[in-house]
């Protein structure tokens, strides 16, 4: 008996393969370019597989401003995430457990979310002038505080979901056992939402790591983050594509790690809507 050709299946798998190539090609090409000498970048026909691994571009990034910029991004994102998650835990606990006071009712929660929905560039005009007035432009402080405020709604929104999923009876039992409020939070609530907390930290961190326009406008000279440093590599007579590619490859590595570690949470977070 002849087997019927399954057109739907064939089409579906072709679509997956084509889409996979579409997604992979720019990433592959960036890795490929980062190992080339600048003279080879523009060659026709292009070389698809690097024959020799030339590390000049990476050496340049690690010896110059690139290293400083990556380090700054790392520090700013880490400190700001830490503050945002601590404040976010406080706010989300209040939102989740006491949703009836003027500061924590639905209206207040909505107001916090509007901070997230306002386009950052619309905030940046007054924030820029505020930091300028205080003489704090181009400092770690201004960048960290600004990022914290921008990430707080995200942290609250994610954490509130994890808090809501935690039954109140557990906390009540811990009060009955004689734990104080802080003991309950520290020893019962936080350990129970531990993995959710970790996912929140990862997501907040990656958002700051990836952010561009705040880094570009509020930093740039003293405190340069890698996203703000990237465009400056394109100035000059000859665009050093291999260096840009090398910095891009380095910048993607944390994204890959976080994505692989927290892939299950991403699905969960979006399942909740």
């Amino acid at each position, binding site marked *: 008996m002849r087997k019927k050709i399954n057109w739907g299946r064939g089409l579906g798998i072709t679509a997956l393969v084509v889409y996979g190539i579409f997604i992979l090609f*720019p990433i592959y090409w960036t890795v490929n370019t980062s190992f080339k000498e600048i003279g080879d970048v523009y*060659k026709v026909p292009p070389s698809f597989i690097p024959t020799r691994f030339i590390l000049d571009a990476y050496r340049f990034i690690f010896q110059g401003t690139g290293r400083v910029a990556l380090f700054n991004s790392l520090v700013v994102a880490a400190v700001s995430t830490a503050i945002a998650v601590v*404040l976010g835990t406080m*706010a989300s606990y*209040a939102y989740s457990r*006491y949703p009836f006071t003027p*500061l924590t009712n639905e209206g207040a929660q909505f107001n916090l979310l509007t901070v997230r929905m306002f386009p950052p560039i619309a905030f940046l005009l*007054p924030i820029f002038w505020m930091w300028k007035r205080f003489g704090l432009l181009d400092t770690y402080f201004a960048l960290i505080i600004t990022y*914290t405020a921008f990430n707080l709604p995200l942290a609250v929104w994610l954490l509130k979901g994890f808090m809501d999923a935690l039954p109140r009876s557990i906390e009540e039992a811990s009060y009955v056992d004689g734990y104080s409020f802080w003991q309950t939070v520290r020893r019962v609530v936080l350990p129970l939402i531990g993995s959710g907390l970790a996912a929140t930290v990862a997501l907040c961190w990656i958002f700051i790591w990836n952010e561009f326009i705040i880094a570009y406008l509020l930093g740039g000279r003293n405190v340069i983050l890698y996203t703000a440093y990237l465009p400056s590599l394109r100035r000059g007579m000859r665009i050093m594509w291999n260096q840009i590619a090398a910095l891009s490859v380095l910048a993607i590595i944390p994204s890959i790690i976080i994505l692989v570690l927290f892939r299950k949470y991403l699905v969960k977070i979006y399942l909740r*809507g």
Partner: protein
Amino acid sequence: MFGKESKRIPKTPYYLMIPPQLLIWVVVIFPLLWAIYISFHDWNPTISPERTFVGLQNYINVFRDERFIGALLRMLYYSGVGVTIQLVLGTAIALALVEYVRSERLRTFLLVLFLLPMMMAEAVAAQMWTLLITDTGTINNILIWLGLNPIGWRSRELALTTIMIVDIWQWTALPLLIAYAARISIPESLYESSRLDGASKWLILRKITLPYMRVPLAIAFLLRFMDSYKFLDKVFIMTYGGPGTATELPTFYLYQTAFSYFKVGYGAAMSWIFGIIAVVGMFIFWRLAKAQ
């Protein structure tokens, strides 16, 4: 003891809310209020430190500004078409992934690969693609090598569409993820019983899968639409609004007004109009989420 308990409860949320509120007030609300004040003035600090009171003139000018209107129309094309493609493509890929990839491992691997663009910086994605699409870039090199004509990806006619393609490359992942999550939450028994009833695949897709995914997909559309309204990284890096104003989206025009021309009062008025549009969109989103 219980007396103490009942007194403690109403105070705790206030203590908890003070530090987060303080931060939001200092960094967000106070500057925004200042922006209202400055939006009633004409102030260009590069010309003179003097601020002249102009009333509502800035707001009126925004709506008369052809560049602003042009940017809004461009946004409608860029976001409307771009996000629709992201949604359709993302849903199709997610369904194909669930339907045709049996191996759990392979499916997870593909999902991670497909989500990767979403997790990296807009700025990095834009740089990676710029390497591909400049006139002497990789795609044109390959076209020449194949004996075809190179394409002016950053020409006046094509530039906005090129950025849209990069946006599709990066953000199809989000509707894909949401569609994937929605699809695997549909109980498998529904599919089995309809297969027993002899329903065709097309009918199952239309009558079961898509109705179930309607609300998550609507949310995905709004989320993406709002985001593409918010970001300017790709325009900034790939074309800097050009050639001419061919890729000038509202965010980028706002950036130009506020930080290149330093028309601060005018920029503040534009910021507010801009923000209010976003909040209205957000409100619709909130209602939709509630309805779910």
